[in-house]
């Protein structure tokens, strides 16, 4: 893999090289500041307002720049980079359309609390507000979807702003920070002085929990007869998977993990109940509805998890542990709120955590539910079932790949049939549900993890929203393995139209989409197609063995639905279980 890069120097060498105070342009200050934050790759697309920045990058090879084919591809790649590593993802685009093309990606990162620093150019300060060519008020446009944003007015502010932006993006509840740099600011010269301290009076995330609240939780566990843990993305973002494992091992409380929480706890563990919510497992949903104690660890009671919120966990005392105080009580009234970093909370909790001793009958009940109604699907020997394809991908990657998905049925099937055991292995747009995210995010994940297998599983709809980035994989030999689950239809929309809209299939037909094998080949990427199990195994194995990027199209039937399903307006125990043979 060679993403337009030379051999990187050691970090210390680079820091020494770029820390020297010197009079340079705003653009050079930006590059030095990024480097001092430990950036090793930025994803971007040049244009008029960032020409000075790109000029400064000419011959600058102390970090990589990956030229995507669309700004949306750049920001999703930066997102995949961030989610797979925990480091801040960085992308750059020009003013106006370049910046607005980032909007979906910024919102995606905001909804899923992903640390990004998004750099946009803008027209020169004097032209701002005049509707100049390629002018857009990107700070204004993105106010509701950024954790914070900066419009830079002086070049000498750049080192401080970049340092603050990285700090804000990757502490507390993480999220995207925008830095908008007018063209004249990137051209102006000033004294570059590295900034190492952050002083933000209005920003002090609470990390350590209140001891009194922890004691209340410990007492609640002792008293509970039907406790469960609902763990979310916060576990992964705070690096608390080991602490969570220890907590569950000590308390023996059954656990369900949200879409973004998958990988935060080993899926194969006997106390793991799978995914909760709209397409959650029978066991997880039944358990939530019957529980007398629900301990939410770093999830935000999203409506796809709670479904009808008035009937959610009706018997449970609710404990909510979150870094963001605004999440507590927002959707579900909370009995024991605990504000703090998940890892810090669990570290404080674990030494006193004891087995929930009154919950033996409950554990037996959970085991019985799991045995009674496991996730299943009706397999076929003539057709290729999408769920089978996901299981096959799991099997052939040893469950060890980083898997990105797009949005829709295939995403739910991956959540159900690819058991994740390690954090940061599953990358998916949960909150915003962004189609077109799956493939470019895999590029970022692969750049960040050159030695791991990165698989991107997409539908035939979402694949066509960012397919242009195949060029980036081919040119830079980024060996992402792309699976396209092709049912020739917008499957999740079809499913809703079938179940809720009385089979009125409105504008969902994707027949006549390009031949994905030829499309891949047109970009210089190996393409395969599979219509049955034998072809699927052979094509996929060959794709995995291929040293470069590959696309495998799996042709699956169009009528397959994701079950269980809880429709909107229903409570979690009102599950449609599907054609249960």
């Amino acid at each position: 893999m060679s993403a337009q890069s030379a051999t990187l120097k050691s970090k210390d060498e680079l820091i020494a090289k770029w820390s020297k105070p010197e009079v340079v342009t705003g653009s050079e200050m930006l590059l030095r500041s990024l480097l001092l934050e430990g950036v090793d790759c930025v994803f971007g697309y040049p244009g008029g307002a960032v020409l000075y920045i790109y000029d400064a990058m000419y011959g600058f090879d102390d970090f990589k720049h990956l030229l995507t084919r669309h700004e949306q591809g750049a920001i999703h790649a930066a997102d995949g980079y961030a989610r797979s590593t925990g480091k801040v993802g960085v992308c750059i685009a020009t003013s106006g359309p370049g910046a607005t093309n980032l909007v979906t990606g910024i919102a995606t990162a905001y909804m899923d609390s992903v640390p990004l620093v998004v750099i946009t150019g803008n027209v020169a300060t004097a032209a701002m507000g005049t509707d100049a060519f390629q002018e857009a008020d990107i700070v204004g446009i993105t106010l509701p979807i950024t954790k914070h944003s900066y419009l830079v007015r002086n070049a000498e502010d750049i080192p401080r702003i970049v340092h603050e932006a990285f700090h804000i993006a990757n502490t507390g509840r993480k999220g995207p920070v925008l830095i908008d740099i007018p063209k004249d600011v990137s051209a102006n010269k000033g004294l570059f002085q590295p900034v190492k301290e952050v002083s933000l009076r209005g920003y002090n995330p609470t990390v350590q929990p209140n001891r009194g609240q922890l004691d209340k939780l410990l007492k609640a566990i002792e008293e509970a007869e039907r406790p469960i843990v609902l763990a979310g993305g916060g576990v992964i973002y705070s690096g608390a998977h080991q602490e969570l494992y220890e907590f569950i091992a000590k308390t023996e409380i059954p656990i369900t993990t949200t879409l973004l929480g998958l990988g935060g706890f080993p899926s194969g563990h006997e106390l793991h109940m799978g995914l909760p919510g709209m397409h959650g497992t029978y066991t997880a949903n039944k358990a939530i509805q019957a529980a007398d104690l629900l301990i939410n660890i770093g999830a935000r009671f999203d409506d796809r998890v709670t479904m009808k919120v008035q009937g959610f966990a009706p018997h449970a005392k609710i404990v909510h542990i979150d870094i963001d105080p605004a999440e507590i009580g927002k959707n579900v009234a909370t009995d024991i709120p605990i504000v703090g970093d998940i890892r810090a909370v669990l570290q404080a909790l674990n030494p006193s955590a004891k087995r929930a001793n009154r919950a033996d009958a409950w554990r037996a009940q959970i085991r019985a539910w799991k045995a009674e109604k496991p996730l299943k699907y009706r397999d076929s020997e003539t057709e290729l079932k999408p769920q089978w394809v996901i299981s096959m991908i799991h099997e052939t990657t040893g469950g060890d790949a980083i898997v990105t998905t797009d949005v829709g049925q295939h995403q739910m099937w991956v959540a159900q049939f690819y058991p994740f055991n390690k954090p940061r292995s599953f990358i998916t747009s949960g909150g915003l549900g962004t189609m077109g995210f799956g493939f470019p995010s895999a590029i970022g994940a692969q750049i960040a993890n050159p030695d791991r297998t990165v698989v991107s599983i997409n539908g035939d709809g979402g694949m066509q929203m960012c397919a242009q980035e195949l060029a980036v994989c081919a040119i830079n030999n980024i060996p992402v393995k792309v699976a396209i689950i092709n049912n020739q239809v917008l499957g999740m929309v079809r499913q809703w139209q079938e179940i809720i809209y009385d089979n009125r299939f409105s504008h969902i037909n994707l027949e006549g989409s390009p031949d994905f094998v030829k499309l891949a080949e047109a970009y210089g990427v190996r393409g395969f197609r599979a219509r049955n199990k034998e072809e699927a195994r052979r094509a996929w194995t060959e794709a995995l063995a291929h040293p470069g990027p590959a696309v495998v199209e799996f042709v699956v039937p169009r009528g397959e639905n994701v079950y269980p399903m809880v429709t909107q307006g229903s409570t979690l125990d009102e599950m449609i279980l599907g054609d249960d043979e």
Partner: protein
Amino acid sequence: MNRKHTIAILVNDQPGVLQRVSGLFGRRGFNIESITVGASEEPGLSRMVIVTTGSDRTLEQVQKQLYKLIDVIKVVDVSGNPMVARELGLIKVNAEPSVRPEILGIVETFRAAVVDIGPSTLIVQVVGDPDKIDAMIELLKPYGIRELSRTGVTAMNRGSK
């Protein structure tokens, strides 16, 4: 239960801060009855006073969401304790010479002031809590109000709180 709340927000005096705060109210569905902004006791910081209506739960969400803005330093529910709340209103009222004595009588009773006299109008300036301004407006309505402008409430807690 929905109640009126008066919130004081100490913010960095930065471009765009008003937009961040008002935008947050808008998109989270919190109403703004009035908003005032001005300098605070500390250089570099401004104080906004917002009057909003909502349940206690809404108020809690408003406060928590405000604290998530990096430029917000402190949020105080002023109406949670004894407070002084004041607003200024300018009322341009029809005032032919024949009715002026009557109007001046009202103005005096309210300890308001006439700040401009035109050929057929007066501008009345009234300072007080919003109810007082409402009352003044009611009393001047029969003469014909030509123009009305209110500043919105600014407020602080009584005593050393």
